[in-house]
């Protein structure tokens, strides 16, 4: 896709390195996207629970999509004032700094091979140590345990790390290093948002914690330097030769910036495969009760802005399951058509606890249930119940966030593939009882990376001007009888109760 762009126009490039694909997007000063190019990469599933990516394939794809996007816009590298990166978080790479070759495939955020390591940390009573310093209780999502696994299982990894030949990075670190020269002077840096997802960084000092490094047996010299989200890390050599690499953020934090949630209390939810709700908490580090995660929102300059994050494991993926496993619809969008064949859920509820319930309930032994089945129920009711599950899960996360002290969320900015579904967005507004708004241009993740890079080189003077680029494309106002909201909420809660304790230990 490309749009008209004047010759000689200066643009900011963003790389969105996601779980399934790598994209390059070009943005103008007004935040308008003028071109995008995309390439998928292979998912490696060596065993159940293991999900790996080939870091070299991802790097190869970056070198392809960047020139492709420029071609589509009819622009040259000299038109690009800066490059920003947003990336899948917590995916872990170790490589040899002299050859640029990874020692193993990258272990992705969905990979659960570290569950034994994590269980041991918990049973050893170390939860408080990690939560106290990094803000994160031990979980298989995070990069630190993955790095320990690689050091212990990949031949040569630990020796190489100790001798300084083998280095670690999450995906943005890997890409910045390659972009700025690789073995030939590449910059070995990470940013505070990605570092905040490793379980290795002190959330207050924004530096690696010696205590946690020791606890996880990670040699300090293999770690990248932690930098802000918006500064010139280095300059590209080769692809985009001479262009400053000037922004990097984890994808969900990038969306927070792209949605210009710059004031405490402002929140966004990205509805894709999963759902990710982040609320700006300003200079305050929120508590991590209820399974919500305090994290760095962004660091522009000297003072970090923190965020509170709640994630929902299954949102779009439940729709995919409804389509692919049940065959009820042939495209994700058709779930709205099917749901509109009935006026309500007919008393039917779907709780998508496919691998347990996460924030804010934490029942690993829960499994999915469909309740309220009667002979009256047909496909349309199930379609509604599938969509409503996304809304009620959002409500639970938002309620937990509002229990946290600080400003309550009074409106929610949304982005991601599911915002195409207007019935769902209306229902989200109805059950949250706050207005839901979609911005023009649904590329909040990439836009956030572009903003960080453009701010660093003065293309934009300060974050406040970026607010003027945010335009409301749609708004859904709450329109539900409070009594109905209350009784449906209660029904959802009763449905969730029925999902508990289904999985037996060891299954």
């Amino acid at each position, binding site marked *: 896709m490309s749009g*008209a762009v004047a010759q000689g126009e200066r643009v900011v490039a963003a790389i969105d390195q996601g779980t399934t694909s790598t994209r390059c997007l070009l943005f103008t000063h007004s935040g308008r996207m003028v071109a995008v190019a995309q390439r998928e990469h292979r998912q490696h599933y060596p065993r159940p629970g293991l999900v790996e990516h080939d870091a070299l394939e991802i790097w190869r794809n970056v070198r392809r999509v960047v020139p492709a996007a420029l071609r589509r816009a009819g622009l040259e590298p000299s038109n690009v004032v800066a490059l920003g990166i947003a990336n899948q978080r917590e995916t872990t790479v170790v490589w040899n700094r002299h050859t640029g070759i990874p020692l193993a495939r990258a272990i992705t955020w969905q990979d659960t091979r570290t569950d034994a390591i994590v269980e041991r940390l918990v049973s050893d009573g170390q939860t408080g140590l990690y939560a106290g310093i990094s803000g994160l209780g031990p979980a298989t999502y995070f990069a630190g345990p993955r790095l320990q696994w690689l050091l212990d299982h990949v031949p040569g990894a630990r020796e190489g790390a100790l001798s300084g030949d083998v280095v670690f990075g999450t995906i943005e670190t890997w890409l910045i290093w390659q972009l700025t020269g690789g073995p030939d002077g590449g910059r070995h840096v990470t940013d505070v948002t990605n570092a905040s997802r490793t379980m290795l960084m002190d959330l207050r000092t924004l530096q690696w914690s010696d205590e946690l490094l020791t606890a996880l047996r990670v040699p300090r010299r293999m770690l990248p330097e932690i930098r802000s989200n918006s500064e010139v890390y280095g300059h590209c050599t080769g692809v985009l030769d001479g262009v400053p690499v000037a922004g990097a953020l984890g994808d969900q934090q990038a969306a927070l910036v792209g949605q210009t949630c710059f004031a405490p209390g402002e929140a966004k939810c990205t509805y894709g495969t999963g759902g990710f709700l982040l609320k700006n908490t300003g200079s305050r580090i929120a508590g991590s009760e209820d399974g919500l995660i305090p994290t760095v929102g962004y660091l522009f300059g000297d003072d970090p802005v923190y965020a509170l994050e709640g994630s929902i494991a299954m949102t779009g993926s439940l729709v995919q399951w409804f389509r692919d496993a049940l065959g009820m619809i042939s495209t*994700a969008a058709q779930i709205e058509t099917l749901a509109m064949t009935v006026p309500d859920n007919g008393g039917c509820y779907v709780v998508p606890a496919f691998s347990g319930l996460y924030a804010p309930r934490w029942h690993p032994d829960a499994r999915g249930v469909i309740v309220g089945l009667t002979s009256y129920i047909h496909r349309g009711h199930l379609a509604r119940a599938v969509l409503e599950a996304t809304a009620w899960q959002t409500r639970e996360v938002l309620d937990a966030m509002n229990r946290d002290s600080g400003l309550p969320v009074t409106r929610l900015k949304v982005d991601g593939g599911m915002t195409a579904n207007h019935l769902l967005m209306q229902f989200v507004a109805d059950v949250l009882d706050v207005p839901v708004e979609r911005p023009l241009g649904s590329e909040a993740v990439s836009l956030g990376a572009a903003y960080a890079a453009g701010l660093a080189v003065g293309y934009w003077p300060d974050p406040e001007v970026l607010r003027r680029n945010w335009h409301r494309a749609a708004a859904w106002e709450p329109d539900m009888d409070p009594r109905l909201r209350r009784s449906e909420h209660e029904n959802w809660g009763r449905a969730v109760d029925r999902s508990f304790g289904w999985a037996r230990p060891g299954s």
Partner: protein
Amino acid sequence: MAKPIQSIERAAAVLRLLGGAGRPLALAELAAALDLPRPTAHGIVRTLCDEDLAGQDPSTGRYHLGDGLTRLGSAWDRHDLRSRAMNWADALAATTGCAVFLGVPEDRGVGLVHHVFRPDGTPQRLRTNAVQPLHATAWGLCLLAFAPVAARPPQEMERYTRRTVTTAAALADVLAETRRRGWAADAGGYEPDVGRVAVPVRSGGGLTVAALGIGAPLEELFGPGGRVRPDPLAALTSAAGEIAASLEAER
């Protein structure tokens, strides 16, 4: 490989012609366009009418695409349409500064499948799923002109403003003009101060599946003498082309 069957090739050509013309065609026009003797062209088009793939207007004797075509395969799901159109609709709102609508034929009206707010920060209400009158809105007129099988002119034409088209004769003129120039407009026919322009979105084979339109305060879309301003019209036409291409590409 089996030899192609000439009569089927010709029948396909007739369908393409009827679908692409944007107006009903006389037998003489069909025969001339296909370079066929009149009796041959007549045999083909009569057979298509029997199969309900073509239809004949009883008053003028001209031919158009038949109802049966809309039932061939399934028509586009309206939410698939929205999904395919969404990025282009956003880009169109950004470049024109207008609100964007996507409408499809529905019982006695045009059903709004998608709506993007005018990006000026003013309070607006989402109109998705609203049904608006065919004869009074640019998107309705667009469907009447380019999707005459699916959208039929109403018997009663209610007046909404001073500018609403309310007689069959006036409507026929407007539709003829719309077909001639390829786009539809209402200069305040539904709401007095709002102007609208719409173009057809065609799927493979030339069938019009939706109307893509923009709406804005009257004077922003219409210049002196009621002429539509060229820039938004060009952006609208190119967005409709991109949406059509995305329908074509991934079906």
